[in-house]
């Protein structure tokens, strides 16, 4: 050990000892925060399987908070982040959400990446009157009044643009839908099938593999023999890489058999090596390549914050949006309680990196701009199609929700 | 007992109906017949010694009797009950107790606990559900311990006992089981001369109340307990008779010719 590292080590261990020695177990008065601070929870996994993506979301949330604090904070108070690591396990998400909501008494948690983790947090925020700001695009089918779905796309915002585009622009008519085995891909598949029916496109397959599954050979050969001329992928996580690589190894080419994904962000492309994703399409409201001054400054700011080789992606942009729109709602309400935020956030607009987003007052989801990107050799995506105006969120599109016939309203969901 | 010679072979004709009978008992390992066509009749209360060279199939025979090994052919009868392949536990319950060559006891338990487990005649789970165990030995356990010289060691862990004491403990456990038939695999192995004498005495003592089947190498010991002897050779019964008869049996001598082991083995 050099002198320097030993000193660091000593410092680290002293800090650690101090950290361990002061748990606030005892109920000697509930925790009091300094009057000029507002505690906020940040809860993204720093360890475990989904840490890869969630680490960058954690950084982005901190960056957004730093920016707000630099501008003078919220209601004249600084935001003070309390960071928890739920270790990619729903069980621990629930536990940490309890700690934040009940013990630390934060008025808001910015957190979660997977729906399974959100479901574990849901009972906590609903019964203990907390607020979760949820960032990830997901299957919808939820209508909680304790969750602000800021910047998170729902199926209609990823599918209404892309599936007709595959038919019209690429001339493809036989769709194979493939996904990891959980609610999001299944919800996406249902909405996809409805859309396909409406536009007269055939669905030749709808298959799932367990999350984290990395043996894709059978599935790829199934796709090959199904006669499909286009693939829609709702595969997530580690499986994405194995899936794309298997397609390549079995000799498929995205020019002949195009693939459009709802989940493959810049992070996954970087992880698999851009050559394997080259030419594949992705449908999401945000890509690092969105060509606006607003986004350029966001990307620059994040690279300055997290390192030059980091990439920005949709879930992260939604985190950024979520923190900011929460702060706007707090300013408008003059209060940070979940009720005040929920009552005031409807109709608020934020000039996000992707463009203008607006919170829907009925379902607390966000109007977003659907985009389709095509992967290029450097691992970023060229935007090949985008809407001129943001599209309304319809979280229950999988069971037939339309703009005129809402299922999720301020009164809750009526199925 | 009457000894008759049929075709040069000596067969024991028991006076009382035999308590243990085997018929054509055969087992093969990889087509090699370890025990082959054994017909054994053991009378009630008899003390029977089985001898034979290494690999003659003596231990395998005991394994077949107590259910450790399943026979390829043949049957085992306990009085008029066919106990072939009914499982070790059921065989034990029907009245056969087995002591192994290397003592197998419950090492992490005390001597008393070992005896308690052995003497407990309720064997089903639900019978035992509400059974408490006493910290003290009952009369029966004291008696067995006394007989085997373990009275002073009741509260010691079995793992702390000497090898000889372990042999005694296993014997004590088999006795606590109160079996009709006791199978003993080289009970005197590893014992001092004094202990061997004591064992011989005990075996003679046991015979009568129990039927005892002993495997032994030590001819001195065999002579000491000197009852009917069965000689096994290459998996089959070669001869049966008293010690004296056996030592002069031409077939036995021929089988052991050159090896000259009978008197020492």
């Amino acid at each position, binding site marked *: 050990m050099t002198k320097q590292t030993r000193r660091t080590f000593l410092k680290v261990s002293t800090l650690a000892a101090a950290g361990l020695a002061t748990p606030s177990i005892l109920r000697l008065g509930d925790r009091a925060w300094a009057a000029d601070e507002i505690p906020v929870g940040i809860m993204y996994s720093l360890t475990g399987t989904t840490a890869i993506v969630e680490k960058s979301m954690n950084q982005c949330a901190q960056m957004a908070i730093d920016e707000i604090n630099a501008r003078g904070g919220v209601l004249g108070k600084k935001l003070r982040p309390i960071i928890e690591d739920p270790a990619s396990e729903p069980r621990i998400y629930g536990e940490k959400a309890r700690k934040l909501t*009940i013990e630390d008494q934060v008025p808001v948690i910015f957190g979660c990446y997977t729906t399974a983790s959100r479901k574990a947090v849901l009972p906590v925020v609903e019964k203990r009157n907390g607020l979760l700001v949820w960032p990830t695009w997901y299957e919808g089918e939820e209508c909680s009044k304790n969750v602000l779905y800021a910047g998170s796309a729902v199926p209609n915002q990823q599918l209404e643009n892309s599936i007709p585009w595959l038919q019209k622009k690429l001339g493809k008519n036989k769709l194979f839908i493939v996904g990891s085995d959980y609610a999001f891909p299944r919800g996406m598949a249902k909405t996809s099938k409805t859309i396909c029916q409406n536009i007269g496109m055939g669905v030749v397959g709808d298959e799932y593999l367990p999350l984290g599954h990395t043996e894709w050979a059978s599935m790829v050969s199934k796709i090959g023999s199904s006669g499909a001329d286009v693939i829609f992928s709702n595969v997530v996580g580690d499986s994405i890489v194995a899936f794309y690589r298997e397609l390549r190894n079995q000799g498929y080419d995205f020019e002949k058999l195009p693939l459009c994904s709802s989940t493959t962000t810049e992070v996954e492309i970087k992880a698999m090596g851009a050559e394997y994703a080259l030419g594949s399409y992705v449908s999401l409201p945000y890509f690092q390549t969105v060509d606006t001054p607003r986004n350029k400054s966001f990307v620059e700011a994040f690279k300055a914050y997290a390192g030059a080789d980091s990439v920005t992606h949709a879930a992260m942009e939604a985190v950024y949006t979520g923190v900011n729109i929460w702060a706007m709602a707090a300013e408008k309400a003059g209060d940070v309680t979940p009720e005040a935020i929920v009552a005031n956030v409807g109709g608020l607009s934020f000039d996000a990196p992707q463009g203008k987003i607006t919170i829907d007052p009925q379902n607390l989801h966000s109007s977003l701009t659907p985009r389709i990107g095509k992967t290029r050799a450097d691992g970023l995506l060229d935007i090949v199609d985008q809407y001129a105006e943001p599209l309304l969120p319809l979280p229950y599109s999988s069971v037939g929700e339309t703009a005129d016939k809402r299922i999720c309203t301020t009164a809750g969901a009526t199925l | 007992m009457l000894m008759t010679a049929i075709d040069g072979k000596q067969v024991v004709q028991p006076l009382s109906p035999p308590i243990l009978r085997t018929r054509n008992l055969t087992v093969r390992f990889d087509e090699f017949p370890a025990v082959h066509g054994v017909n054994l009749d053991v009378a009630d209360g008899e003390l029977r010694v089985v001898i034979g060279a290494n690999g003659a199939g003596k231990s395998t025979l005991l394994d077949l009797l107590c259910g450790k090994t399943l026979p390829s052919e043949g049957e085992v009868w306990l009085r008029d009950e066919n106990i072939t392949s009914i499982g070790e536990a059921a065989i034990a319950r029907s009245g056969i107790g087995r002591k192994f060559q290397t003592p197998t006891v419950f090492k992490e338990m005390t001597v008393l606990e070992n005896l308690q487990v*052995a003497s407990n005649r309720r064997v089903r789970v639900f019978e035992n559900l509400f*059974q408490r165990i006493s910290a003290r030995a009952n009369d029966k356990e004291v008696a067995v311990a006394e007989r085997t010289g373990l009275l002073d060691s009741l*509260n010691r862990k079995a793992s702390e006992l000497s090898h000889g004491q372990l042999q005694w403990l296993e014997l004590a456990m088999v006795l606590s089981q109160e079996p009709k038939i006791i199978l003993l695999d080289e009970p005197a192995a590893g014992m001092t001369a004094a202990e061997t004498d004591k064992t011989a005495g005990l075996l003679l003592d046991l015979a009568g109340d129990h039927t005892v089947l002993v495997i032994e190498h030590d001819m001195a010991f065999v002579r000491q307990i000197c009852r009917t002897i069965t000689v096994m050779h290459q998996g089959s019964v070669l001869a049966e008779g008293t010690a004296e008869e056996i030592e002069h049996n031409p077939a036995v001598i021929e089988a052991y010719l050159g090896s000259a082991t009978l008197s020492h083995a």
Partner: protein
Amino acid sequence: MRMMEERMTYRTASLVAYVAFFALLMVLPFFLNSFWTNRMATYLVYSICALGISMSWGYAGILSLGQGLFFGMGAYMLAMSLTLADPGNNPVPELMLLNMEPDAVRDLCCVTTGSFLWIPFRWVIVGILAGILVPCILAAVIGYVMFKRRTTGVYVSIITLAFALIGQLLIINNQPLTGGFNGLASLASLEIFGFEFDPYGPSIYYLVTLTLLAVILLARYLLSGRVGQVLKAIREDEARARYLGYDVENYKLFIFCVSAGVAGLAGMLFTLTSEFAAPSLMATSFSISMVIWAATGGRASLLGACIGALLVNFIGSLASESATFQPVWPIILGGLFVFVVLVMPNGIAGIFKDFFDRRSAPRTVEGR
């Protein structure tokens, strides 16, 4: 009889330890805020789990690495009842409405394939009973084939592990029936005779503590009696026990089922403190964690296993909440596995016992 005296001392000491432990648990809520009350209750649930492991592994030498399967089944059974008790899921759980065919009848009988299986769970009592019985029956089936074929040792561990994996996969794969990967999360609070258990209040805490107390007393009664003695004998030498006339398989099956029932009970209580049930409860890593809780506290000591579960989880949560310890916590945990096994195979309870029991010559490992 110096030996006897020393035993007495150890006996008295463990009695004191038991009393002190439960006395502490009883007064604890007076000093805890609602978050820590809930967290402690959850950790005590883990203690019950460790207790189940200790019963089968420590006392009978059966190391199940699929305990999470039974825990998860227990959690699901109660969660199904509590799902139906939630007004938002009346008459049919929302998860089924989202997964049904558009023209299906909106009734539990036939809204999705197999949804009729939920019908009995309209009565909470069914959920509660099933939470213990279903894991027991499952264990009976698995145990029957395993033990009748005389599977032992590591084979048992790996087979149970494989069963847990299958269970997890099947639950995930049948989303319209089970909620799939996301599990069941919109649950009502448990209400018995009009009394509502609050996950954050002392009511659940005491429910868990008293259950723990009941389980530990029952386990002690069972294991200090004849059955425990025979199990210990089986652990020491299975064949010997057989030649003494015991049907070894039945004893193993019995304790395996009891252990599964205890895990199921813990699973139900987990549903109450954490308000959800998910397939991740059946994950291999969670099952193995349970084993290490028991190993740390002392595999062959019931109280030890409880304390082990509390300690490992408590330290774990503190470590994960301190920024400096968080990245090295898995290493500490992994190191703990190795350390416990190498250095203190009988866990904390073993050290406690050695302290009173110096004379017992070479230290040996129980329940290999």
